[in-house]
C-alpha cells in the first residue's frame, strides 16, 4: 500500500511541464489532483518512473468565462473551486449538479475537472457532462496545441485521444442556449460512489413548443459515455410526456451494452439505463422554457 519510488518534478510554467512530458525514454505521468492516480500508485497498479506535478503551474489555474460565452476550465482547477463559483452555478447548472456527484467533499477539494476528463473512468460523471454539453478539449504537447470535441476525445476504458507527451490543458464548456432544460440522474450504491449507471439530458423547445433539439448521454454502460442517437431522434418533434419517456427508455435499453459485475448484473444495468433516461427526459422537459 505504498507507492514505488519515482522522480518528482514540480515545474512552474506550462512550457517546462511540456518539456518534462516530452521525455520519451521514461514513463512520465501528470500529477494534478491525484485522486485517481495516487490510489493506483498506492496499490502499485500504476508505477510511473516520473511525476510532473502541475499544482504549481499558475497559468493552468484557470476558471473564466470567455468572450464567446464559454466557460474555460484549466488543468489546475479543482472540482471544489468550480462548485464555489457563482458564475458556474448560474450559467452551467447542469455541470454544477453533475460535479456535486463526484466522490466526496475531500475528493473534490483536490480532484481536478481536467484530471477526471483525462482519466476517463467509464463510470465518472465529468466525461458524460462534457459530451452532453458539447465541451471542447484543448490538448498541448511540445509539438503544439490542438483542440478536440468530446466525441473524439473519449476513446474507451481509461483511454483518451492523447498522444505520448501530450496533456489536457483546458476544457471549454459552451454557454447553454437560453431556454434549454437539463437533467442529471445517477444511481450509486452509496453517496459518492462511482455510478452503477448515469444519464444526462439537455433539451430545447422549438418555435412550435415541441422538442427541437435533444442530447441524451448514458454513462457506466461501456468504455465511454454514449450518446444514444436513436433516442435523441425519437425525441424531436415530441413533447416530454410519459409516452415519449417510455419510448426513450425502450430505445436506450435496446442500445446500451453494460457489463455484469459484483454490484449489478448487465440486465439490471440495462433496465436502469432506460429508467434513468426516462426520468431525465421528464425532468429536462419540465425545466425547458416553452
Amino acid at each position, binding site marked *: 500500500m505504498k507507492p514505488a519510488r519515482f522522480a518528482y518534478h514540480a515545474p512552474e510554467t506550462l512550457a517546462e511541464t511540456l518539456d518534462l512530458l516530452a521525455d520519451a525514454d521514461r514513463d512520465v505521468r501528470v500529477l494534478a489532483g491525484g485522486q485517481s492516480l495516487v490510489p493506483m500508485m498506492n496499490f502499485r497498479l500504476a508505477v510511473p518512473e516520473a511525476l510532473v506535478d502541475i499544482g504549481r503551474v499558475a497559468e493552468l489555474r484557470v476558471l473564466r468565462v470567455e468572450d464567446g460565452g464559454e466557460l474555460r476550465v484549466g488543468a489546475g482547477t479543482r472540482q471544489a473551486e468550480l462548485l464555489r463559483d457563482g458564475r458556474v452555478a448560474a450559467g452551467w447548472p447542469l455541470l454544477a449538479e453533475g460535479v456535486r456527484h463526484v466522490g466526496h*467533499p*475531500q475528493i473534490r477539494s483536490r480532484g481536478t475537472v481536467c484530471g477526471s476528463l483525462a482519466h476517463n473512468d467509464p463510470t465518472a460523471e465529468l466525461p458524460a457532462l462534457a459530451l452532453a454539453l458539447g465541451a471542447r478539449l484543448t490538448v498541448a504537447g511540445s509539438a503544439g496545441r490542438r483542440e478536440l470535441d468530446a466525441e473524439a476525445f473519449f476513446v474507451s476504458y481509461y483511454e483518451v485521444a492523447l498522444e505520448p507527451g501530450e496533456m489536457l490543458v483546458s476544457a471549454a464548456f459552451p454557454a447553454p442556449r437560453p431556454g434549454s432544460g437539463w437533467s442529471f440522474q445517477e444511481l450509486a450504491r452509496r453517496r459518492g460512489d462511482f455510478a452503477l449507471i448515469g444519464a444526462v439530458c439537455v433539451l430545447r423547445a422549438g418555435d412550435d413548443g415541441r422538442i427541437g433539439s435533444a442530447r441524451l448521454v448514458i454513462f457506466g454502460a461501456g468504455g465511454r459515455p454514449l450518446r444514444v442517437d436513436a433516442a435523441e431522434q425519437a425525441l424531436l418533434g415530441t413533447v416530454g410526456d410519459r409516452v415519449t419517456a417510455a419510448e426513450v427508455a425502450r430505445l436506450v435499453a435496446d442500445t446500451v451494452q453494460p457489463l455484469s459485475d459484483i454490484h449489478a448484473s448487465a440486465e439490471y444495468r440495462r433496465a436502469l439505463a432506460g429508467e434513468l433516461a426516462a426520468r431525465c427526459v421528464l425532468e429536462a422537459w419540465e425545466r425547458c422554457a416553452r
Partner: protein
Amino acid sequence: MSETGERRTVRICVNGTDMLAEAEPRLLLSDFLRHTLSLTGTHVGCEHGVCGACTVLLDGEPVRSCLMFAVQADGGELTTVEGLADPHGELHAVQQAFHELHGMQCGFCTPGFLLSLVATLRSNPEPSDDELLDSLSGNLCRCTGYANIIAAARLAQERMR
C-alpha cells in the same frame, strides 16, 4: 530537481507551527505526519481514499492525506486533530459534542470525522440534513451507526453559532 526520487525539503505550517523536514517524493502526507512529524492523531485506514480516517485540512479545505504526497503540501498550512483543542486543552466545540453525545466508540474514524465537520461548519454554518450527510459521506464509521455523530454535529453547530 529530483531525478531519482531523492529526498526533498518540505516546509509546512502544522497547527500553527512551522515545520521543516526531509521527505522522499513517494512519502504520503499521512505517513509524513505520523512517522516524520510524530503526529499520530491522523489515522490511516484504507490508504486508497475510501474511509476518510486520514482527513486533514490543507489551507482550510478537507483532504485525504493518504491521497497526497508530502512534497505536494510544501508551503501549505495544515490542521490535524492535534490542532483542534486550544493550547490550554479546552476541546473544540465539535470534539466536546462528540464527547458528550457518544459520537464515537472505538475512536479510529474520529479524527477524520472531526476535521470534516469543522470544515463543513466553517463554510456552511447551518447545513441542511442533506448537506450535512453529504459532507460526512466520505467518512466511514463501523461502530456508531452514525446517529450520534449527526446529533453531535447538530449540537456543535448550535454552540458554534
